[in-house]
């Protein structure tokens, strides 16, 4: 006997309703626990949002930073800062970012890029923070 027929024989419509609600509760719990993946990047200049870039569209955008133009590149669902070279350009060291809550920045330019959403409880590199 196939499973649906067995289920129909062994349960009433009320049983199946309870089962459906239970499955729904489990799905909702799962979504609440894990959050949503990053879908777009928000670009901040001096801590003010100035640009939103969907990670689904490959693009290159130029933004006026404190020291000159800063280029932000989106490719294959990832985002990074380009060009301005400085030991303090954290973006250069970070490279591509894509996970929800990840950031990259050019400190002297005053430009910060953040992938929308909150990071997983265990961040991508496995550390809550890096002392440097």
């Amino acid at each position, binding site marked *: 006997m196939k499973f649906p027929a067995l289920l129909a024989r062994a349960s009433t419509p009320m049983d199946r309703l309870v089962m459906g609600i239970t499955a729904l509760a489990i799905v*909702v*719990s799962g979504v609440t626990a894990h959050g949503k993946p990053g879908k777009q990047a928000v670009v*901040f200049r001096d801590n003010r949002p100035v640009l939103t870039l969907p990670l689904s569209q490959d693009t290159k955008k130029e933004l006026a930073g404190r020291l000159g133009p800063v280029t932000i590149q989106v490719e294959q669902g990832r985002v990074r800062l380009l060009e301005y070279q400085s030991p303090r350009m954290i973006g250069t060291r970070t490279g591509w970012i894509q996970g929800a809550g990840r950031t990259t920045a050019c400190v002297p330019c005053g430009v910060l890029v953040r992938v929308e959403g909150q*990071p997983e*409880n265990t961040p991508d590199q496995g550390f809550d923070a890096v*002392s440097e």
Partner: protein
Amino acid sequence: MNPRRWWIMMLGLIGAAALLTWGFMITAPTRMYVSTRLQMGTLVSISTWGVEENKADRAMDLAFEEIGRIEAMMSRFMPESAVAHLNQAPRGEPHAVPEELIGVIERGVEMGRLTRGAFDIGIAPLSDVWGFSREPPPEAPPPTAAIHNWLDARNGLPDQGITITPEQQILLANTAVALDLGGIAKGYAVERALEVLQRAGVANALINAGGDMRIAGAKGGQPWHIGLRDPRNPEGVVAVMDVAGSRAISTSGDYERYFMSDGVRYHHILDPKLGAPARSGLISVTVQAADSMTADALSTALFVLGGEEGLKLLRHFPGSEAFLIRADGTFIKTPGFIGTKAAPR
């Protein structure tokens, strides 16, 4: 038991378990919330645990506001800050500054005494000679004469040329003395930011202000998992620190602001006795202490003093621990330092 009763019982149990789990997650948040901003010339990141998102967001906004307020008072690069005004004031005359700033200067001068000058909050003119705060950074060291002029003008000044008068005003001895609180104000700011978070009901938090870190509580019963950057590989980590409870961590290294000239690395941590970047044989110093101002100042002082002298100094700060990395990659770890060397990847 007939199959129908069995099904009803099983579904009831599963349903109750799912609802309990859901209810627990709504009432006791088990997510970390993180917010990052550019402040005090670096990336400042705040992580919270155990409070729901709206409360975490409000608390983090308040903490960032507090850091911004302190930066507006203590940054020498903000023309309207109290420190900038003090640095422009005539020398040899006392100058009124906010009471809060007096407290930080007092602590800075005290740390200068305790470290026998290895930590110095009055070296802004020397930092300007070297130009590490310029963008783009310099490509060659300054003329030797400029360094000698500074050393001569500073020579023999008590308390690094900074006097706190009985009227609680600040007197700078001469133009070779000007405040650069970079080695202590970030520590003060993260300490204050933590107080703001705690007043807003956040008991578990991690604040990271570009090397100055303040930890409170834990992450769902687990310690905060913190990496220590490999000084010669920006993507690598040399040690792992699992820290819970109240602790401050500060790292000073020769890799954040530097330039190379004729194969020599010139970094931004200046030895006030040389008037030049410290050459102590260390390339990274991490200090764990009870508060961020102590950790911040000690990481700079130990970097300047080197391993042997630095560890002697550390004995005067009970509860403070250090992890020192030498230029050849070997390291010294004090017995109470919370952390272990990272496994090679």
